[in-house]
C-alpha cells in the first residue's frame, strides 16, 4: 500500500522522544532468562484444553454427509482409507498407552505446626566473626612478608576454604536452622578455623 504522506510520517517519527529502559530491568530479565533456561517448563504445568463435547457429533455428522456423496470413490479407495485409519488408530493407541504409562499423578497439601527449639542450638548461627580473623585477612591484603611464607600461605588458604564453607553453611541454615547435625558441623568448622588461627597468630 502506498503511503500518501510519507514525508510527514517520517518527520513525525523522527520527532518522537526516545526512552532508555531502567538498568535494573535488564538485570531482572537476565535473571529470569537464566532461571528459565536452567529449569525447563515442566509438562505438567502446561495448560490442558478439553475439546467441546459436541465436536464428535459434528465430525460424525460431516462424515455422514460426505459418505453418500462419493460411494464410488469410497468403494475404490475404501481399502486404502481403512488401512490409513487403522495405522492412525494404532499410532494414537500407542501414544496413549505411552502417555498412560509415563503420566505423572499426585496431590498437594499444606499444614502448620509448632516446634520448640533450644536457643543454644541457634546461638552458633548468630555469632559474630572474631576480630582476629579479620586481622589475618588485613595482613595479607597489605602483603606483609609473613604472608609470603609457604607454611603461612598453606594455612591461610586452608582457613579461607573453611571460612567459605562456614559462610555457605550459615547461609543455608539461616537464623533458625535447628538441625543438630548441621549446627554441629558448623561448630566443628569454627573449632578448626580457631585452631588454624592460633597457629597463624604465633607465626605473625
Amino acid at each position: 500500500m502506498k503511503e500518501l504522506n510519507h514525508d510527514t510520517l517520517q518527520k513525525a517519527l523522527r520527532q518522537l522522544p526516545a526512552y532508555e529502559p531502567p538498568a535494573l530491568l535488564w538485570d531482572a530479565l537476565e535473571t529470569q532468562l537464566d532461571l528459565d533456561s536452567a529449569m525447563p517448563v515442566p509438562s505438567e504445568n502446561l495448560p490442558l484444553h478439553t475439546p467441546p463435547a459436541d465436536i464428535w457429533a459434528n465430525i460424525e455428522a460431516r462424515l455422514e454427509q460426505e459418505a453418500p456423496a462419493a460411494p464410488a470413490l469410497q468403494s475404490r479407495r475404501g481399502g486404502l482409507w481403512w488401512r490409513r485409519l487403522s495405522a492412525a488408530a494404532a499410532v494414537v493407541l500407542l501414544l496413549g498407552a505411552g502417555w498412560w504409562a509415563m503420566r505423572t499423578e499426585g496431590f498437594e497439601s499444606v499444614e502448620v505446626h509448632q516446634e520448640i527449639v533450644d536457643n543454644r542450638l541457634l546461638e552458633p548461627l548468630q555469632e559474630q566473626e572474631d576480630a582476629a580473623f579479620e586481622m589475618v585477612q588485613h595482613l595479607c591484603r597489605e602483603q606483609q612478608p609473613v604472608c609470603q611464607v609457604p607454611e603461612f600461605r598453606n594455612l591461610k588458604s586452608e582457613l579461607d576454604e573453611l571460612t567459605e564453607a562456614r559462610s555457605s553453611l550459615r547461609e543455608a541454615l539461616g537464623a533458625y536452622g535447628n538441625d543438630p547435625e548441621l549446627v554441629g558441623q558448623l561448630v566443628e568448622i569454627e573449632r578448626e578455623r580457631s585452631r588454624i588461627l592460633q597457629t597463624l597468630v604465633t607465626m605473625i
Partner: protein
Amino acid sequence: MQKLLIYITLCLLPLAGAAQTTLQVVTKTVQKTVGWKPGYELEINGEKAEVEVTPGSGNNIVVRAELSARHPMLDTAKIDVEGWKFVVSTIGKKVYVRAYVGLPSGKRLPTSNLKAKIVIQAPPSCPVNLANKFGKAHLERLDAPIVLSGEFCSFTLLQLKGSVRIDSRYGNIEGTAIQGKVDVQSKRADVALSQIHADCAVRSEYGKVWVQPDAQTGNVWIQGTKSDVTVDLPQPPQHNVFLTAEYGNVSVPAAFQQSKSGENTNRAVLSQQGTRPVLTVETNFGSITVQ
C-alpha cells in the same frame, strides 16, 4: 504444702534458664507418581533436603516431598514456603526429581529455615544419580548403579547391589553391605565402610576413614591426605596388606613386618601365601591403624 511449692519452684528454676524459641512450621506436602521403564534413570537434585530412596513395587516411581519453612512468625513462614519449587518430570530416559528454592525477581530472600524431606520409592533396577546440599541421603536395597555427590550432606548406604560412586565434601559416608564396586572421594568428611563385596577405592582428604574388609571384599585401595585410616581386619586376615604413611604413624599387630623408608616414611606389610586380594593404604600427614 509451702515446702512442696518451694521444692517444685527450685526444681523448675534450671529449666527457666534454658531459653527456647517457638518456631511456626509450615509444611507443603506434595506426592507424585511417575511411570518408569527399564533403561530409565532417576536423577535427584536436592537442596537442604533429606532424601530417602528405597525400592518400591511395580514400574512406578513414587515421590513424596515435605517442603517446610520455619520461622517465629507464621506469616513469614507461609510466604517463604512458597519459595520451594518441586518438579518431577520425565525428559528423555531420565526421571528428574528436583527440589530447590526459587526466587522470583523482585522478591525478598527467605528468612525462614527451609528444609525438604523427599521420600522416593523406585524400582530396584533403576539407576540413581543424586546430588544434594545441606542435608542427608539414605539409599537402601537398590540393585542398580548409584552415583552420589554432596556438600554438607551425609550419606547412609545399605544393602546395595550395584556399583557406588560418591563424591562428598563435608558430608560423612557410611556404607554397609555393598555388593558392587565402591569408589569414594571425600573431603573433610569421615568414611566408614563394612561388608564390601567387591573392589573398593577411597580417596580422602582431611577426614577419618574406617574400613572393615571381610572374606568377600576384593582389592581395597585407600589414599589419605591429612586423613587417619583405620582398618579393622578379620581374623584370620583375608588380604595381603601394604601400608605406607608419610609423616604419620603406622600401628599394626605383631604379624606385620614393619620398616622405615627414609626419615619420614613408615611402612608395614602383611604377605600371606596363595592368591589373595590386596589391601593398600597410603597416607600423608595421617596415621594408619590396623586392628
